[in-house]
């Protein structure tokens, strides 16, 4: 009898926590939807913001976010690819664990520290100032581990047969990389890039005083100009929480940003779920 009672208590506790956790998550999603949807219409998406974001839309904020993450992706991708190939194909086995640890350490660095470091390094030392390029460099370092690990996992999951076939044909290590490893890990590159872009799009702390300004800029005309972004737009409007119009627009921008990020993560999940190697079918 006591055993049964314990069983019941344990499972009820677990079920209560599960229901709480899941309803919390539903509350969050529905709060974003319910508050964001009224703000969104074609005009909101396609016009520039006016009166410090209280009126008008978020066109240039959205474009700013795309510019920042696009350039970050372009900068991070080749480095991630090169490093993933080196770590899986060239690096001696005894050093791989240490290399992994260092990559994971980079992933754990608090993003505000990337902001401080990035501003001093790219902004001051490389004289880029507060500009979108500084922001993209910072975001590129920040998402590098995400992209790298994804590509590395894809390379590690290539069936060994493929490599044996390549080696049996007499391919050199470098040919093997070009003919087998890179083509067979393209799905990892795409998912990694999507996850990395999603992570960059959600980042505010690292770019808020290094790459963006609140208003008064449209599209950057050079490398050294700041942009506006959805993230920082939400941040500024959120701090004016007493003003209902500012708040509505903040929720609208938040919904657009969340939708953007979720689309990218869903895309990566879909690719991950559908990919199978020919040899394993």
């Amino acid at each position, binding site marked *: 009898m006591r055993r049964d009672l314990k069983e019941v208590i344990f499972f009820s506790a*677990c079920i209560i926590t*599960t229901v709480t956790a899941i309803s919390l998550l539903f509350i*969050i999603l529905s709060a974003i939807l319910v508050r964001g949807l009224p703000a969104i219409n074609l005009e909101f998406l396609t016009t520039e913001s006016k009166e410090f974001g209280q009126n008008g839309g978020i066109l240039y904020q959205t474009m700013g976010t795309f510019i920042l993450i696009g350039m970050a992706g372009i900068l991070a991708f080749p480095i991630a690819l090169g490093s993933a190939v080196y770590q899986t194909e060239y690096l001696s086995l005894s050093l791989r664990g240490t290399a992994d640890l260092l990559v994971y350490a980079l992933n754990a660095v*608090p993003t505000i520290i990337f902001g401080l470091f990035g501003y*001093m390094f790219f902004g001051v030392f490389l004289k880029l100032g507060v500009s979108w390029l500084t922001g993209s460099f910072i975001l590129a370092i920040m998402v590098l581990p995400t992209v790298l690990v994804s590509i590395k*996992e894809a390379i590690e999951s290539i069936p060994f047969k493929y490599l044996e076939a390549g080696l049996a044909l007499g391919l050199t290590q470098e040919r093997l990389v070009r003919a087998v490893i890179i083509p067979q890990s393209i799905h990892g590159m795409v998912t990694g890039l999507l996850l990395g872009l999603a992570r960059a799009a959600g980042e505010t702390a690292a770019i808020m005083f290094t790459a963006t300004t609140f208003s008064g800029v449209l599209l950057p005309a050079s490398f050294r100009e700041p942009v506006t972004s959805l993230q920082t737009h939400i941040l500024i409007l959120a701090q004016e*929480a007493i003003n209902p119009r500012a708040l509505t627009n903040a929720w609208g921008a938040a919904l657009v940003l969340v939708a953007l990020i979720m689309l990218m993560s869903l895309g990566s999940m879909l690719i991950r779920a559908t990919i199978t190697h020919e040899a394993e079918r």
Partner: protein
Amino acid sequence: MWPLGRWRPGVAFFISSFLISISATGIIFIFLIVESFPIFQHEGLGFLSGSEWYPGEVYGALPMIYGTGIVTFIAVSFALPLALGSAVITSEVLSRPTRLVIKMMMELLAGIPGVVYGLLGITLLTTAVKNTFNLIDGNSFFTAGILLSIMILPTVMTLSEDALRSVPKEYRDQALALGLNRSETIFHAVLPGAIKGIAGAVLLGIGRAMGETISVMLVIGSLDRIPQPFYNIFTTGQTITSKLGREGAEALGVGYHWNALAGLGLILFLAVMGITFIGNSIVGPLSGRGINTKRKQKKR
């Protein structure tokens, strides 16, 4: 084919990208040490123990260190039971399709940006906390802790669930065959095998909570003080990250104020790195944990 013999451009490219990837953390670490060095010269250890912070006069980091500690503690205390309970149900009770749906939702939620959580916090949570506990100001350590607990819930839950799933099915079968009921099986056969992974999940969650900036900055009230008495978590305060977020822009690169902020950054960096390192080491052979969702890997 290549003029430089064995030194091939492809390999050179691989090596240089590898060097960038592995040295970035070290460079940031050195940067923080160099930039914060003057403040440790200026304030000595008083920088760590001082509780006054007036730019231009005195810099004491204790209120911020306290804030980061207490907020992280609140976040983990709330997130852990929720994450563990739902991980047990998801891994041990639910059917495979339901489990996949829940894990997918968790992964999507882990992607919601901090600034959106901050917006939720500033509009919904602060008011709720204010009314529930009859406070004058809804911005407090407690509010920030709760918000962080919601933010780290998906991470801790997903990783704990992975840990539970990684316990071989045979363990459960044997325990059941011995006549243990399901909760006893979980306690005596599953949890002991998964405890390392769960500890790792919690440590990685702590690391995330400590480093989160924007959402905390929006709901903590940003006042550098240690509450009286020290366990009064319903007062406004400051964490290391919210301090850096608030004052980073005005102090960038200038004088002791900047050095002091870099010092705060260094403290945060060391704490997060230490915790993440321990977390990654006990989770065992590194494989995507805490970065992307773990996938089954083939040994090569």
